[in-house]
């Protein structure tokens, strides 16, 4: 059913109101909140939530409401700029025309290809922004390099969950059922309200992960759903009347999952018929789970055994949905967390049922101009993808390089040197998307030519860019919003251009315009990008989207604008109907055709085929020799309404809600260290230091502190060495490089040990050298004054 309002309307006062679905930039996930943008005399004067949008119903978050300030921010960059590479780190930018930018960048790209091979060009993508669906074609098809990188150590965001799902479940991303597929939402006769939604390492109200409109949980609570939070902190959501909390030690999620399964199995609460029909490896799985009694799991996780039993009994009911979060990914033990999470949904029969865990089909909707563009590369070039051979579990599911391996390559020039970097919407020094960001910083300075696409001057651009290509905001370009990037399409929305400030180009415009100029030809000799007709974005951009929507969905881009929001409906129990497998047979798209409680592929790749718990690698328990020095566990990464990771720090309205990053400390712990509310605190471990302001809360365990991620200070000096204060509060400096899971996924962003001490202010922090846990063990021992027990898990795959 199409929305009744026309998507573009002229108002009596001469202003124009354009309907749109919100994505980015600046950053956000593809939540597609419905909004009405009013423009007068070239200015965005009003943003109003669109009541016709059946998921957001007129509601908007403060990042969308603040768009007028974002669009017309005095610090925005709206013309292309260049800088002499010898002036990297200095504010010596020169405005250039787009013609100059095209000529300069294309000449460099062609030079690199001719002299060093296309693989010497590396494209970085960031997190969440729409660039997530364009940095692949930018690399594979526009620049024609096999090296596209998501730099976060262990690919620790979303990718691990998707890959584990591929191998264990053989489907697209599992999402909670919030009836988003249906125009009539919760009233749809096929939908059933979940009794419980388990938010596992995820607080969707603020994070809206990958297109899940977080406040749909509140909508469901009003109808009777209860929320179970598995989290190191008591959150406001968990503290709500009737909701349930499993407060755990950071990084021990796999143990909790195994303990929950243990209770379900020992109490005989599993859905045996479903297991017998649709699961592989039940006996082995059962035996493994029996090792993890609630009492044993309480020791590992600090969660009370009785509370584990209570939650397990709830999760054995139907329907129950599980919202699994970033904590699955940001953990070297995360492959096992993901495995046990899927297994819990499976053994309780909660997969693909109304109100349970919904599944996308195995191939992405509108995937043609993303991952499939890798086919533009000749096989011998594709074989040069960095880290692909070393980490097959990653490279089979993801089209990117291996991130940790990539940093090794940038530092050592082995097996070949990277000469050019292209940052497509990634400020990974700030960081969010990197561990050991100081090392990435130094590595960026070793290349010949770097391009950054962004809205603002970021620490990454100031440090490393030679050309800055400005992006239009979400209000200023045409595009699509697609939940889960097509891996589980709850809806598809049209993003419509309401105005354009300055001379900017969107991600898709950059792909097409550079693609046409570089005149690429794929292995079959045909040109890739010339097929999109027209010289102006108003022609080739709609044409680009129509080229995908028309064959797959039957409508063109202008029809999508008119519909406003396309909700496809949903087929429950697809596994019974042969809708999950390419051969049309019932079952799941896995090796065995079943949900693999015992993973045949993990086994083949040298990993334990069954889920298991591994104590966080750098904790007081795993390193008793350092336990006195670093007695606390640090977790990080929780989200706030006023920012998206490292973004939104330069807008006064949003900054009002968080002036500086805060470190959450239990009052008892703070008292022990002489720290009071509002004191500056330095948090430290063998790998790095950061300063944040103390906030004393009883909702965190006395043995844990929580730090904010993604902090830099746009108001400070942007030049080197300060770089907008990017090293002052940077908690990712406490996360070591290459401390990842056996299959190549997961790094300890949320679970490393630390010490805390009171300091005078934000300034004066001495940056710690980021020693490598394999290459610089002697230096680390000397720094810490003890013989550290190293595990050397990935030595075979390191470039020494």
């Amino acid at each position: 059913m199409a929305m009744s309002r026309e998507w573009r309307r002229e108002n009596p006062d001469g202003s124009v109101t354009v309907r749109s679905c919100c994505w980015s930039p600046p950053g956000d996930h593809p939540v597609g909140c419905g909004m009405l943008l009013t423009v007068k005399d070239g200015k965005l004067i009003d943003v109003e939530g669109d009541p016709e949008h059946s998921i957001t119903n007129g509601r908007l978050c403060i990042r969308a409401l603040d768009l007028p300030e974002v669009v017309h921010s005095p610090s925005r960059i709206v013309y292309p700029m260049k800088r002499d590479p010898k002036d990297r780190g200095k504010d010596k930018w020169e405005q250039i025309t787009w013609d100059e930018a095209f000529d300069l960048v294309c000449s460099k790209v062609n030079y690199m290809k001719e002299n060093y091979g296309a693989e010497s060009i590396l494209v970085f993508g960031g997190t969440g922004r729409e660039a997530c669906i364009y940095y692949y074609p930018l690399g594979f098809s526009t620049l024609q390099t096999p090296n596209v990188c998501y730099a976060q150590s262990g690919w620790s965001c979303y990718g691990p969950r998707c890959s584990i799902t591929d191998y264990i479940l053989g489907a697209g991303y599992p999402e909670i059922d919030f009836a988003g597929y249906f125009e009539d939402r919760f009233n749809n006769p096929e939908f059933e309200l979940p009794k419980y939604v388990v938010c596992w390492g995820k607080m969707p109200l603020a994070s809206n992960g990958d297109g899940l409109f977080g406040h749909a949980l509140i909508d469901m609570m009003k109808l009777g759903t209860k929320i179970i939070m598995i989290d190191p902190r008591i959150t406001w959501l968990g503290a709500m009347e009737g909701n349930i909390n499993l407060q755990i030690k950071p990084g021990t999620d796999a143990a909790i999952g195994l303990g929950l399964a243990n209770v379900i199995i020992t109490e005989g609460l599993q859905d045996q018929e479903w297991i017998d029909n649709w699961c592989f490896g039940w006996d082995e799985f059962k035996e493994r789970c029996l090792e993890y009694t609630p009492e044993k799991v309480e020791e590992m996780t600090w969660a009370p055994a009785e509370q584990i039993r209570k939650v397990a009994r709830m999760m054995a009911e139907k329907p129950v949905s599980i919202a699994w979060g970033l904590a699955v990914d940001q953990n070297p033990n995360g492959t096992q967390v993901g495995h046990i999470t899927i297994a819990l949904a499976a053994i309780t029969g909660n997969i693909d049922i109304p109100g349970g865990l919904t599944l996308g089909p195995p191939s992405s909707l509108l995937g043609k101009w993303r991952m499939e563009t890798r086919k533009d590369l000749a096989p011998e070039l594709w074989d040069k993808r960095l880290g692909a051979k070393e980490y097959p579990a990653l490279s089979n599911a993801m089209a990117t390089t291996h991130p940790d391996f990539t940093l090794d390559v940038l530092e050592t020039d082995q097996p070949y040197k990277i000469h050019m970097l292209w940052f497509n919407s990634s400020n990974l020094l700030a960081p969010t998307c990197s561990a050991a960001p100081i090392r990435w910083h130094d590595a960026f300075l070793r290349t010949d030519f770097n391009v950054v696409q962004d809205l603002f001057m970021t620490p990454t651009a100031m440090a490393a860019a030679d050309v800055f290509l400005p992006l239009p905001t979400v209000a200023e370009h045409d595009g699509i919003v697609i939940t889960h990037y097509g891996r589980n399409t709850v809806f598809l929305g049209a993003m419509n251009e309401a105005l354009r400030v300055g001379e900017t180009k969107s991600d898709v415009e950059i792909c097409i315009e550079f693609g046409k100029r570089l005149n690429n030809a794929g292995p079959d000799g045909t040109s890739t990008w010339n097929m999109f007709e027209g010289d102006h974005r108003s022609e080739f951009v709609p044409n680009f989207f129509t080229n995908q929507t028309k064959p797959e969905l039957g409508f063109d881009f202008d029809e999508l604008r008119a519909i406003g929001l396309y909700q496809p409906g949903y087929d429950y129990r697809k596994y019974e109907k042969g809708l999950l497998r390419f051969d049309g047979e019932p079952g799941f798209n896995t090796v065995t055709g079943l949900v693999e409680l015992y993973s045949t592929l993990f086994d083949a790749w040298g990993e334990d085929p069954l889920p298991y718990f591994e104590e966080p690698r750098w904790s007081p328990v795993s390193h008793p020799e350092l336990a006195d020095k670093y007695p606390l566990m640090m977790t990080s990464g929780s989200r706030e309404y006023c920012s998206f990771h490292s973004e939104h720090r330069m807008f006064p309205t949003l900054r009002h809600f968080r002036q500086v990053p805060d470190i959450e400390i239990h009052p008892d712990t703070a008292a022990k260290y002489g720290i009071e509310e509002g004191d500056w605190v330095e948090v430290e471990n063998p790998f790095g230091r950061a300063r944040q302001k103390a906030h004393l809360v009883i909702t965190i365990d006395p043995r844990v502190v929580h730090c904010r991620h993604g902090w830099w200070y746009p108001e400070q000096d942007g030049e080197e060495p300060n770089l907008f204060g990017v090293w002052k509060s940077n908690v990712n400096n406490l996360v070591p490089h290459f401390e990842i899971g056996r299959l190549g996924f997961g790094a300890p962003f949320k679970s490393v040990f630390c010490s805390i001490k009171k300091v005078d202010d934000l300034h004066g922090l001495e940056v710690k050298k980021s020693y490598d846990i394999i290459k610089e063990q002697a230096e680390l021992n000397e720094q810490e004054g003890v013989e550290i027990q190293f595990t050397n898990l990935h030595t075979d795959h390191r470039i020494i």
Partner: protein
Amino acid sequence: MAYEDYALLIDYKYCSNCHTCEVACKNHLQLTLGKEIDLAKTPGIVVLEYGPFHLEEGNPDAWDWKYIPTPTAMCDLCVDRLDAGKKPTCVHHCLANCMDYGPIEDMAKKALEIGHKVCIFKP
């Protein structure tokens, strides 16, 4: 004026402290007053917090932690929006959809239906 018997109802057990009412109100006041509004100095509505209080030792599920949006002296009742047939901007945009506005008798009736953890402001 036409809306003098109107009141703002807040089902505050659902207020998630998303700040949407505060920023939506700021936008509205800037448009109607034609000047910059500083959220730290002249907000039209602010979200107040109490808690978190842990109510029972050893019970991980016994908490009291609430947010209550509170209209200030700057609240103009969104008269121009009401005239245009719209809801007040805080009510319209509230992410938790926990606010309502209307004749005070209707709001009192609704509060009784909601039952608990609900309040009514007569700004």
